[in-house]
């Protein structure tokens, strides 16, 4: 069947099978930030936004994206890079494999919630698994990122404001 999807605001028409998943379309069209980590609908690595809502693209039938807007990391590259600097400042990454999915969900959270509490942050991001770390570095990076972009937070570590974010 034929579908038309807006990927990062670019209209793309393509042919799919009945059981093609959204992740397959995205990767085929060159959006390689979207990766399949677990294929059991658990790890969060394949997170993209469908009409602005974070979803697991491994579990969304591509046919359901017909006529809809999909946002991948490539579509929010500037924001992703800005957040990435906070991650680097905390040495949060080890292998970095889980980052695209985490970043997409952090940015979705920042849009959905203003000044979330620690509990809210941890609940929102519970579906993004990292197998290297204990999430502490990521958590500090997220708090600092929100402190700079949303205000009213205490910064972790040295607390320097990183240029180019605001």
């Amino acid at each position, binding site marked *: 069947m034929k579908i038309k999807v807006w990927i990062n605001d670019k209209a793309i028409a393509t042919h799919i099978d009945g*059981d093609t998943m959204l992740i397959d379309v995205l990767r085929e069209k060159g959006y390689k930030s979207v990766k399949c980590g677990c294929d059991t609908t*658990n790890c*969060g690595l394949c997170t993209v936004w469908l009409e602005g809502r*974070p979803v697991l693209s491994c*579990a969304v039938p591509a*046919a359901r994206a017909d006529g809809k807007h999909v946002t991948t990391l490539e579509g929010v590259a500037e924001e992703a890079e800005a957040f990435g600097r906070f991650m680097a400042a905390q040495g949060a990454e080890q292998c970095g494999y889980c980052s695209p999915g985490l970043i997409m969900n952090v940015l979705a*959270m920042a849009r959905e919630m203003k000044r979330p509490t620690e509990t809210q942050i941890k609940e929102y991001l*519970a579906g993004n698994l990292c197998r290297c770390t204990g999430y502490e570095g990521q958590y500090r990076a997220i708090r600092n990122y929100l402190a700079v972009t949303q205000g009213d937070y205490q910064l972790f570590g040295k607390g320097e404001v990183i240029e180019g974010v605001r």
Partner: protein
Amino acid sequence: MYTIRTFKRVESLEEAYELNQKKTTTILGGGMWLRLGNRQIQAAVDLSGLGLDTIEETDDAFVIGCMTPLRDMEVHPGLNRYFQDMIRDCLKDIVGVQFRNTATIGGSLYGRFGFSDPLTALLVLDTTVEMYKGGMIPLEDFVDMPYDRDILVRVHIRKDGRRCAYQSFRNTRTDFPVLTAAVSSKDGIWRAAVGARPKKAALIAGAAKLPERPEKKDVGALAKEARDTLKYEDNMRASADYRKILTGVLLERAVEAVCGGMDHED
């Protein structure tokens, strides 16, 4: 993973119902569980074009379309205010926000999955499922009905002033529950359900005999009835015996949450 020969986005429930009379047809909910199986589907019926993804509050009920994502119920202010955050409590630990943005309440209830958190919670509310042909069926009857070729269209939760609370135990957050429990009370009449035993959720009949303000021993007797009358099994997450111990703990916590504390004999 499943295979789908044709993906059919229907324009009416009648069209969906007709297609679904074939055994090789499957109605898609969120598809989160379905895709992990190996079903060979000739026609996958997609209801997402029928506007069944809304939560409406009427004077006496919440009416929830079958395609409503779990996340929408979780963050719905009206539902959570009315049911004292129980809806949120029974959904927030299911995998992650991204998952709950896609998983649907219709899929979760129609499947009558053993692991279903919302099935346990909604059993202690006055919940009715609206089937396309079968009409209005109380959830407590629906839960034990055989799977048929009908379509779950909406879920109705009556606003009857009930107090309620939900508890689950998980080995690790976001995993399937090891055990779920929910209780509610209205005019001194209690309802209690236990799920993920790992069998699907069931009401405990004796809850209706609980006093208006149960003491620890009353809840203990209720837990004993659950252990004696409901089927418990072992699986990779926990043994049946462990689940039986948890039953008393979760029921006690849930009753305490509803009563705002409990009188202890000891």
